[in-house]
């Protein structure tokens, strides 16, 4: 522990217990007396909210598992059984399903809070990296869980996501077949996904314990980004932050329960109320909203990398997309070293701050791209022209057709008499996939260019000497001159 233990056993039993298993001391020092910076704002309440989310998902999930059947022939029906015949089954399932969205909403706010206030910087690099591991485990768990109702989106999401592995050369296809338990998604996939969906939350729980442990070694970061200098900077966690976290949690619950009771299916996809059918592919296969930005990165790379002026392909587009997807998460591990600034809080980083908000726009934009069809045209300049060009009595003639088929039919008819050539003048089209590529580049540029460079060239604003001073002077720094 980073601070002296202040636990005083009050009764004979507590003294007896403390000498043998100091669990009360641990709880007291970790969650009651724990010295916490006094200037934490509401963005810091999401750690507690996330713990709550995890417990809710585990409790509702265990209950659902008592009634759910992981057999491909009756999985869908067993979910309907929960919705219709199990006492409050509809409530438990909606809390669990909406809960996954709320869990991700909270974790994204938590992550962006860490980004804004530099919570990943020394000495909290490991704390941050453990958080990234939790995030990856959450994505895996959510994906596995989404497959279990065995609706159309479940089945096809499982097919698309496991197919990602086939992009890896040589070993990709064997890995995919091993994961799926066959040559295509089917009953073996469902049973193992159920097993793993039950396992992973407990792995998450374990990593959360490490995350909290690491937090309690370094102590909280805070909005000023200044480390705690002494007792004047802190207050005990209880009651100050227990009451603040509880208030924030209830506000969060108001949003959560509004979805559960009034729009439980708003965040899901209607196709998942159609039983899985391997012979019918849905028009648009999309993951849940929280995975859309990564889905966009995966799909936005449509070009091969090869040796210029030859036909030699070094990396195929599909593999490149998978690499980009993996890199987009791996880069988070490197963040503590990619950010070259020693200043933690963006309050004192005038140059970095607009880039942070731009990065949010990029992430939301990627989410939008992920939700839409990649072929969707955003900007079109001109019209497609399919022309037949030929020469009549020495005069060049060009005739325009609305479709290539019409034009080809015309040329075929014409070719008996004159030689005609087909010329296509296609309109310029800016499509979703192009926007996706631009945003993907922007995503990586933020980590690989903006963070390293801005940290070096930026002049930070003057910072308060301590949290106490930041609090007394008012949390906001003096307004910056216009830029």
């Amino acid at each position, binding site marked *: 522990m980073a601070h002296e233990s202040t636990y005083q056993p009050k009764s004979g039993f507590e003294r007896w217990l403390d000498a043998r298993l100091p669990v009360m001391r641990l709880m007291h020092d970790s969650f009651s007396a724990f010295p916490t910076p*006094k200037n934490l704002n509401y963005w810091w309440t999401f750690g507690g909210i996330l713990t709550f989310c995890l417990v809710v998902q585990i409790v509702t999930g265990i209950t659902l598992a008592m009634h759910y059947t992981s057999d491909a022939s009756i999985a869908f029906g067993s979910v309907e059984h929960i919705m219709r015949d199990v006492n409050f089954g509809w409530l438990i399932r909606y809390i669990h399903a909406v809960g996954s969205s709320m869990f991700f909403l909270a974790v994204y706010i938590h992550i962006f809070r860490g980004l804004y206030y530099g919570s990943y910087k020394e000495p909290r690099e490991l704390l941050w990296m453990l958080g990234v591991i939790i995030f990856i485990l959450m994505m895996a768990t959510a994906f596995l869980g989404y497959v279990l109702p065995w609706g159309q989106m479940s089945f096809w999401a499982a097919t698309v996501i496991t197919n990602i592995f086939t992009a890896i050369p040589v070993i990709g296809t064997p890995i995919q077949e091993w994961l799926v338990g066959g040559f295509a998604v089917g009953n073996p996939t469902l049973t193992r996904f159920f097993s793993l969906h039950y396992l992973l939350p407990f792995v998450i729980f374990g990593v959360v314990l490490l995350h909290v442990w690491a937090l309690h070694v370094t102590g909280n970061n805070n909005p000023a980004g200044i480390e705690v200098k002494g007792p004047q900077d802190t207050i005990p966690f209880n009651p100050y932050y227990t009451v603040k976290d509880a208030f924030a949690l209830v506000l969060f619950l108001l949003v959560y329960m509004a979805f559960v*009771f009034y729009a439980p299916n708003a965040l899901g996809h209607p196709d998942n109320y159609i039983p899985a059918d391997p012979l019918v592919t849905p028009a648009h296969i999309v993951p849940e909203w929280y995975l859309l930005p990564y889905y966009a990165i995966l799909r936005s790379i449509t070009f091969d990398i090869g040796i210029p002026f030859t036909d030699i392909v070094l990396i195929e587009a599909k593999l490149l997309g998978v690499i980009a997807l993996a890199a987009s998460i791996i880069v988070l591990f490197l963040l503590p070293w990619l950010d070259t600034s020693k200043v933690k809080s963006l309050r004192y980083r005038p140059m970095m701050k607009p880039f942070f908000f731009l990065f949010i726009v990029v992430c939301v934009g990627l989410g939008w791209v992920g939700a839409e069809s990649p072929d969707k045209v955003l900007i079109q300049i001109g019209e497609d022209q399919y022309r037949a060009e030929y020469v009549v009595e020495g005069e060049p003639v060009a005739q325009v057709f609305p479709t290539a088929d019409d034009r080809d039919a015309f040329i075929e008819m014409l070719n008996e008499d004159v030689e005609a050539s087909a010329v296509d003048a296609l309109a310029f089209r800016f499509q979703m996939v192009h926007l996706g590529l631009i945003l993907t580049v922007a995503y990586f540029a933020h980590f690989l260019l903006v963070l390293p460079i801005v940290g070096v060239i930026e002049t930070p604003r003057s910072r308060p000497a301590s949290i106490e001073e930041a609090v007394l002077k008012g949390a906001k720094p003096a307004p910056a001159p216009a830029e």
Partner: protein
Amino acid sequence: MSLTIRTGTIIGAFVMALNAGAAMAAGEAERPHAPQEGWSFSGIFGHYEETTLQRGFLVYESVCAGCHALEYVAFRNLADPGGPGFTLDQVRAIAANYRVPAGPDEFGDTLDENGLPFVRPAIPANYFPSPYDNEQQARARNWGALPPDLSLITKARVNGANYLYSLLTGYEDAPEYVEMGENMNYNPFFPGQQIAMVQPLYEGSVEYPDGTEATVEQMAYDVTNFLMWTAEPKLEKRKRMGFQVMAFLFVLAALLYWSYRQVWRDVDH
């Protein structure tokens, strides 16, 4: 920061404008709409009306059930609270009109003297039997098309209730420029505008015992209500409980905020 936000808004508005333009250029189908009177089940205090559900059940039974199954609904559900409100005796009578597989008998026979599988009248515990023995039979009887199960149809389509209502009332003659497939019918609300299902509802397709005039709109309204109930049978209970939960949380939030102010009153932060 304000500059960044403003730029973001402008970019957002620009992209949205482009988006709208592209959608209009593509000439999208008509948007599904609700009936004029709206839906009793929408909104915070949403509920079903028993008479509407009973009329809707009549439409389902006399029109839809010929081709569409209701796999996840049992006859007993018709007497559940928050549903059509049939009495148990009525449910027994309704169930008895359906035949469900029975046998083998005490001799181990599975076929009766005519060589047909044993059947018996359904009881409230039975689920609505499918009009078909399997998918192949369903397709063979419907020019290759498979009539979907209707238990969850209003949740399995985007904007489900409005979609279903619009679809049922939206049949029209195909415009001249549309080349219709064989045995297909034109409906602007169906994806692709060509649907295998023939127009199911005509003026007076059913006769309502309560004297309600059986217009196409009325029947579509009633059956959509019924199929919303089959998809979401706990909706009334959910919304009622939701109000209690939200009210409780508001009070709790107020108390916690007050506690927070009390606890922190002497701390500069």
